[in-house]
């Protein structure tokens, strides 16, 4: 057994984690194209982007020439082309979710507005990439590749126009003010459409020349909603509008545009069919949005992770150097450690670091999952097309595959000797079974990453800012922490705010297939705890058990008034459970990543000197994060399980089990010890008091014994978590840092 258990003398963290460590943690040690991409994006982030931020380039709403000068850097470094396949002018073959996630991470390490600027172009083209017909892909996606020397063409720079001025499309994406009508439909000719759309908060609109706009039909000859491709130069009004007066992400261009354009129906994303004189788009706008956002939201989540991890070094440097001016003497603790002499400052930094790691682990795991899912999804689509299945019939077929996936999970949960191997192999070989399994995970991991990384991440960024004192809220704070804190709030909002993610989770986390996998994860965590006892895996397993118990309970229970607890309108129940799940998922993935580092790190000779120390430190961070997650889960679950029961009052019904002190005195002669026992287990009214001074008799746990046992167990599982935190904190006082950050402030 390879134990990572806490011991008295463990190797200590020597340097901050470098690329070798990150490549192992996030599983791209064997992909040199991604390693090159990271270096290219980092060069841009810590070069031109950082210089622009340091020069005050963020201090305007307008799309300035200085901001526009970043676009050629994105083009030349390959950032723009990451999204493209090699035949389209890109350089990475296959799915690109992890690649885009890494770019977002690197750019957001310095400025998330720059990340948004680079990625919004991909977002604008994503509807065409995901749902477009081949002609649309060929025309627009190929043209998004940076123009090569000697080439004469206009590079497509795209924007995605969904959000509209209040009260239309935003949180409720189904409510569209943007309209499409048939302008002209000559016999035997392609219909011409009139598109009327006002956008709000549209990224890249200061310079985009192609827009994919969500619109609803305003004409009985067009069915439902769709997305339409608009080009600068189309006849009509193409007004970029005024810059949005946003306070954050100032290196991205954001405008409130107005379009009133005439375009051919071939611009409908994904094409259309005509039945009975009605033009029917092949994809509604919501179908396209779902396909697009479920991928791009992960990259947004990772932007906040990057901010948290980027804050570690500036905070350490600040803490250590805080008292080095004036009369400080080198070699004294005050001079060498500065604020790091104080436990609180260290503990808070440990929390920030642990959150950053866990959120990055969750985000990159989600990105990798989508990389695995993408080809399977294509296979699924092909399979459905071959069988000519669509709509409900298709869903019915997929439901059968879900049952088969459940069967496979059941087989795999049995002891090895009792498994039906032949059947398991058969099911494992079925790409559709694999698809529905991974799809059920993606439907949870994507919103979880977007929700937790950004929401809780924003809270922790505030903590990071606070650790820099007054410096934290100045423009010249090293690492731009103040700006990053503000920016995190936008990441929590755009591409679907927190409520949207919670709503999605409240549905997807209750599917049978996800729950079956979650049950297996609990067993897996216990096994992990056995081989890696210092990681907090056991704590996490108990927290997962408690969460699952609570979910099952609230799905069937009612409140004190008999109303159902788990209902889509009862967000006081569903949303906190969604929040709690995110904590578990992030901590779980962090543990997996650290175990991977421990297992594979030895293969890299560069890590030989520091692997043990790094693994030991990360193990303690895992423990800290698991304990924090367990605390959150315990709190949420206890509130939900007990909180909807009415507290007993001093009434006839509740008081029938109470004792009077006089009565007990009398009985003490007959039943010795009854006075003490009664006071321990029931409420006792003292002489001349109607009842004890409290809200009512203590609540009883009838029917909740299992929950109470689990909750008590969970509290006990926190044993040792603060020792881990102390060790991690001590490591922060010793770790070697750079002399200066590698980007200006």
């Amino acid at each position, binding site marked *: 057994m390879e134990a990572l258990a806490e011991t008295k003398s463990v190797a200590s963290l020597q340097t901050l984690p470098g690329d070798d460590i990150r490549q192992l943690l996030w599983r791209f040690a064997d992909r*040199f194209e991604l390693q*090159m991409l990271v270096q290219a994006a980092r060069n841009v982030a810590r070069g031109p982007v950082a210089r622009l931020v340091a020069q005050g380039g963020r201090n305007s709403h307008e799309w300035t020439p200085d901001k526009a000068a970043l676009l050629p850097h994105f083009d030349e470094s390959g950032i723009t082309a990451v999204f493209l396949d090699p035949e389209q002018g890109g350089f990475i073959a296959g799915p690109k979710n992890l690649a885009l996630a890494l770019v977002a991470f690197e750019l957001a390490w310095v400025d998330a507005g720059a990340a948004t600027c680079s990625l919004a172009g991909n977002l604008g083209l994503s509807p065409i990439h995901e749902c477009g017909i081949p002609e649309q892909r060929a025309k627009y996606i190929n043209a998004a590749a940076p123009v090569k020397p000697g080439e004469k063409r206009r590079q497509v720079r795209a924007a995605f126009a969904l959000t509209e001025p209040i009260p239309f499309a935003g949180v409720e994406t189904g409510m569209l003010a943007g309209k499409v009508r048939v302008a002209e439909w000559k016999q035997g000719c392609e219909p011409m459409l009139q598109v009327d759309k006002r956008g709000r908060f549209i990224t890249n609109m200061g310079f985009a020349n192609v827009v994919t706009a969500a619109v609803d039909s305003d004409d009985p000859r067009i069915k439902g909603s769709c997305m339409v491709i608009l080009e600068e130069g189309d006849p009509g009004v193409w007004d970029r509008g005024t810059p949005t007066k946003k306070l954050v992400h100032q290196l991205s261009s954001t405008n409130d545009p107005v379009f009133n354009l005439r375009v051919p129906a071939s611009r409908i994303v994904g094409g259309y069919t005509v039945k009975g004189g009605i033009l029917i788009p092949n994809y509604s706008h919501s179908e396209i949005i779902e396909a697009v956002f479920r991928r791009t939201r992960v990259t947004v989540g990772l932007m906040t992770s990057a901010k948290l991890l980027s804050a570690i070094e500036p905070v350490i440097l600040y803490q250590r150097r805080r008292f080095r001016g004036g009369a400080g003497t080198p070699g004294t603790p005050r001079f060498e450690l500065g604020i790091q002499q104080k436990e609180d400052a260290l503990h808070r930094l440990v929390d920030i670091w642990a959150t950053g790691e866990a959120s990055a682990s969750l985000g990159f795991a989600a990105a990798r999952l989508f990389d695995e899912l993408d080809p399977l999804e294509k296979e699924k689509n092909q399979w459905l097309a071959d069988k000519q299945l669509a709509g409900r019939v298709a869903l019915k077929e997929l439901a059968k595959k879900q049952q088969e996936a459940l069967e496979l999970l059941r087989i795999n949960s049995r002891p090895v000797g009792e498994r039906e191997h032949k059947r398991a192999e058969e099911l494992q070989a079925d790409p559709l079974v694999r698809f529905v399994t991974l799809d059920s995970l993606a439907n949870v991991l994507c919103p979880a990453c977007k929700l937790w990384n950004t929401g809780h991440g924003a809270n922790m960024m505030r903590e990071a800012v606070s650790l820099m004192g007054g410096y934290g809220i100045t423009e010249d704070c090293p690492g731009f922490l103040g700006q990053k804190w503000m920016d995190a709030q936008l990441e929590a909002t755009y591409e679907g705010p927190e409520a949207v993610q919670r709503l999605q989770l409240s549905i997807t986390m209750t599917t049978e297939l996800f729950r079956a996998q979650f049950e297996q994860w609990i067993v897996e965590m216990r096994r992990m705890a056995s081989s890696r006892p210092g990681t907090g895996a056991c704590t996490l397993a108990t927290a997962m058990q408690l969460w699952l118990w609570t979910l099952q309970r609230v799905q069937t229970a009612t409140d004190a008034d008999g109303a159902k607890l788990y209902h889509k309108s009862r967000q006081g129940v569903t949303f906190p459970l969604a929040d709690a799940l995110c904590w578990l998922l992030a901590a779980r993935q962090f543990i997996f990543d650290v175990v991977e580092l421990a297992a594979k790190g030895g293969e890299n000779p560069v*890590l030989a000197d520091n692997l043990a120390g790094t693994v030991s430190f990360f193990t303690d961070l895992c423990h800290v994060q698991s304990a924090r997650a367990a605390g959150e889960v315990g709190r949420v679950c206890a509130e939900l399980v007990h909180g909807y029961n009415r507290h007993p009052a001093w009434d006839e019904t509740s008081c029938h089990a109470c004792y009077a002190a006089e009565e007990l005195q009398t009985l003490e002669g007959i039943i010795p010890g009854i006075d003490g026992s009664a006071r321990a287990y029931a409420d006792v009214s003292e002489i001349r008091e109607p009842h004890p001074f409290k809200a009512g008799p203590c609540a009883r746990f009838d029917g909740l014994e299992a929950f109470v046992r689990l909750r008590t167990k969970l509290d006990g599982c926190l044993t040792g978590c603060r020792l881990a935190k102390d060790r991690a904190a001590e490591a922060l006082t010793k770790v070697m840092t750079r002399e200066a950050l590698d980007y200006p402030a």
Partner: protein
Amino acid sequence: MNTAYQIVVCAGIVPDPLQTLEPITSAAGPALKNEMMLPAILDPWAGHALYEAANLAKHKTGSKVWLVSLGPKAKLQQVMMTVAQKVPFELIALDGPASGFTDASETANALADAIVAIPGLDKSKLLVFGGWESASRGAGVTMQTVGERLGIVDQFQGVDELKVNADGSLEILERIEGGKHQISKCAGLPALLGWATGNLPEPKNNPQIGMVNMRTVMPALQKAKPTRLAGEGLLFASVTLPKQLRETKIVKDKPTDDIAREIVEWITK
């Protein structure tokens, strides 16, 4: 006259200068604390040589650039993730120490052996480039020794500019004292140039170049020849970092001429 050059650039790797560099004494002699863990970069002086080589090759059809680098294989790989995106080259990797505390003579021998082993090497087309200095402990003799070992007698150090004349001869600007350059003419090849800073900016990363280079970089790393530098007879009496000096003075309304004079006095004292 268009000459197709064979340009071999010798380039080592050094710790990122932003890192805390703390000399320690290890079992194998002087080293830097956590040296293996520190992010590395291509030695900036050699980097200039590489960019000049690539620029020359770009303008002389049929030319080719090799990058010969001695360093721990895994660290070389990390550095290549950036360098390989800059300019086209073929890597020849030698798996050995990249510390600033190796013997320059041994390093030069290893580099020269690797150059000699390049298939199809034609000395009449050969230009050997390298850094005149180094960002680690610059012994100042490595490139000269490489040239000696290869039998190259036309050597130029502190080069800032190389022009190819119409007749194929080379015009070379070398740094000399007093901020001046010495202009030399070199009638023919082979020649060795130890570059100062040159005149070219660092090329931007280009992933397309990177992907092409990686076709040879990864195999080269996989078959990197283990290179042992014995360091026999080499003794370091002491190792210290250059002293950091900070003298801050706050002045107000002082004429710029006075400030300049004071700075000159401070530098020359």
